[in-house]
């Protein structure tokens, strides 16, 4: 995905069971701060068609 221009830090993949509450909260905190650091997204943004 980096190849097509998604910044490193924007996309994360985790595999966490619903029984692993701590790992889940850790992952959420980590992803939230990493994505915030990447700033507003500029690619693959769907824009709404202008309504006349």
């Amino acid at each position: 995905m980096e190849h097509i221009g998604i910044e490193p830090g924007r996309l994360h993949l985790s595999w966490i069971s619903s029984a692993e509450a701590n790992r889940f909260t850790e992952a959420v905190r980590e992803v939230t701060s990493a994505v915030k650091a990447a700033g507003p997204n500029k690619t693959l943004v769907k824009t709404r068609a202008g309504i006349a």
Partner: protein
Amino acid sequence: MLGYVKKIREISERLLKEGIVDMVIGFHAGTVPMMNEPCLVKNPGETDNLVWDSNCGINLANYLTGRKEKIGIVAKGCDSRNIVNHITENKIKREQLFIIGVPCKGMIDRHRIVSMFDKEIEKVAEQEEKIIVSGEGFEETLKKAAVLQDNCAICIHRNPVIYDELVADPVEEQKDVDRYEDVRRIEAMPTETRQRFFEGLLSPCIRCYACRDACPLCYCPTCFVDESRPQWVGKGIDTADIMTFHFLRAFHGAGRCTDCGACERACPLGIKMRTFSMKLEKDCFEMYGWEAGLSPDERPPLETIPRTDKG
């Protein structure tokens, strides 16, 4: 390569007459220059319609999936690897096929040739390594090597990997080919540049799906773009939707794509979608040592976890 025609017709006639196959899938001449059409020949008397030249870039393995008949199929190196892929994925049985193997030296890039001329091209003829393009008031001879399809220029599997009968002696494989030069050029771009590059590359797309329809890998009964509950991706020409379609289709072909170039050849706008599908081929090769469709006895890398895998 032009001499192959006689052999293709002879083999096809024999296969049909002797009932070895119910039909032969090959090419016949199209109605416009540089466009040969796939055809199904069921009658031994019709094999004279079959042609072979440097405009046979479409992948005939595209027409095999799900068929129940006994089929003779004309296959270049790349096509044969897609046939192996179909066998691996259980879309056709080896016993159903009589593979007419064609050692290939490359197909010509119809988009590039059209863009070289202002006037309409009326005829494209071939003579050994020369392509003669003519129209109203002009005629020019091009070197075939200068107008090869992008994928053919870097091909390292010109000879069929699986076949029942070859139409000619195998050709020499190209050596010391750097298949990933273009990929590395993009890898060297900073993120912002890449975003703009890919947006520009794909912006002409009109979502006609010619690429998908020409691709042997794309045989899903309901393609993800046609799914409406839920709708994964919009049907229109919004940039985000276009990019989602193309990149996701490329991902679905990861480790399966043989770089046959049929997608680029079929595209009415000449979009170079191999620019990103090659990245996936590079990753599969570098991470797993995997090249698609080389042997029906090999299973794809992600199918099983070998005991040596460290996770």
